[in-house]
């Protein structure tokens, strides 16, 4: 499960290159390179079938990809199959949009805020609650675990459980995690559940209430 965007599979009719929902063609190329470099055997001279799990790549992009596969890896593309039904893009929270660059800065003063450091992983069934301020978790929040804070929540590991920031109603609170795959996000009175089978994207992400009054999840760039 190292590579969530691209997978090479061998089926009865030969090799298949499976491309799951993604953000950009650059991301796909990087994932292909990673997947192929994982193989300890050269694939030169083989042919692959491309299985697109969602119609996110344009036709010219597919062509470009095919020629790149041929050039770089000597892989012939023998066909392309696109899944009919568009699958929801892999965003942390289903009804929101995934934005790569951070646009607005709604940061309030956090000067006088208390914070509590939790030096361990929050496991399934455990709850860490700190209404007086922010929580910093030196570990993961596992599926079934819960963190709640009056201020922000920072997870220096993987967020797989649920996180509730701004539990006293502060809408400027944010949730930051090094790897983001939450079951449920809540900021103030805004709730978001995750999309099915959310996989961490490999970079830190931040959830906050965006301009359109929904929780948005985006790549974390320094404040």
């Amino acid at each position, binding site marked *: *499960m190292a590579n969530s965007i691209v*997978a*090479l*599979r*061998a089926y009865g009719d*030969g*090799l298949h290159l499976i491309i799951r929902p993604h953000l950009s063609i650059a991301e796909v190329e990087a994932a292909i390179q990673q997947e192929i470099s994982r*193989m*300890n*055997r*050269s*694939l030169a*001279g*083989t*042919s692959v079938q491309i299985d697109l799990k969602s119609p996110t790549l344009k036709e010219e992009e597919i062509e470009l990809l095919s020629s790149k596969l041929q050039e770089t890896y000597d892989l012939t593309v023998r066909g392309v199959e696109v899944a009919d039904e568009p699958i929801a893009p892999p965003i942390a929270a289903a009804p929101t949009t995934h934005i790569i660059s951070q646009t607005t800065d709604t940061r309030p003063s956090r000067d006088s805020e208390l914070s509590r450091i939790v030096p361990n*992983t929050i*496991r*399934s*069934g*455990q709850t860490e609650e700190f209404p007086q301020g922010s929580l910093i978790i030196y*570990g*993961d929040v*596992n*599926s*079934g*675990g819960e963190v709640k804070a009056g201020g922000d929540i920072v997870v220096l590991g*993987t967020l*797989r459980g649920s996180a509730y920031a701004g539990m006293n109603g502060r809408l400027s609170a944010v949730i930051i995690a090094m790897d983001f795959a939450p079951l449920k996000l809540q900021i103030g009175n805004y709730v978001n559940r995750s999309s099915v089978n959310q996989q961490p994207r490999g970079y830190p992400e931040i959830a906050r209430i965006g301009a359109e009054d929904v929780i948005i999840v985006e790549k974390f760039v320094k404040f």
Partner: protein
Amino acid sequence: MGKVIVVTSGKGGVGKTTSTANLGTALALLGKTVVVVDADVGLRNLDIVMGLESRIVYTSMDVIEKQCELSKALVRDRRVDGLMLLAASQKNNKDDIQPEQMKAICDKLRTAHDFVLVDSPAGIERGFSNASAGADEAIVVTTPDVSAIRDADRIIGLLQNARIEPINLVLNRFSPELVGNGSMMDQADVLDILNINLIGVVPEDSGVITSTNRGIPLVYEDGSPGAQAYMRIARRLTGQRIPIHDFEQKGLFSNILNWFTRKR
């Protein structure tokens, strides 16, 4: 003074009882004195897996009710020296025993034996608190699927709250083929979530079913991969340092891929 180790998992059917029987037997084969304790009151199984069900006269309930001495209730396994079973009562239920009573039994057993392995029932209720009451250490058994892992995570949290340490993980029913084709979590994924020490990986082994039905723990037959895995875990429990066996090396996926690339 021996160690009391609780074997637990949260979820049912992941191999707690099989692991207890095999590790107990393996430790005895290594020359240790071992008592395996069935803490699954009302739903006992360990006696069957050990093949000792016909020899039980007294149970831990009789000991608690002072119907017999603890030493009388221990069933000696005749196939190997130093292995005993303390069975659970089948007619009572888990609420009939208090955690303190289980702890008293474990404390008494540890004075005379090297290892006391307590087979915990599934769940996080009274049965679990009874089983873990007297434990110094824990072995958490899980299979590489998400529901078992979430339950294991919950159990690890409860064990940590109870200050039971170390907590070692046995990854059971591991299938290199399924990992190879991407449909099963690999060792690294499991450890990333659970974040505890891995003491062994037991591969999926159909021999487990026959050995359970015959009442002969797998470790009596050296050949099977499952038996070897349990022997390695037992050695690690006695303090030997043995690297974790890498079952993933011969994944089916790479074999198929090799076959394809060779052909064209």
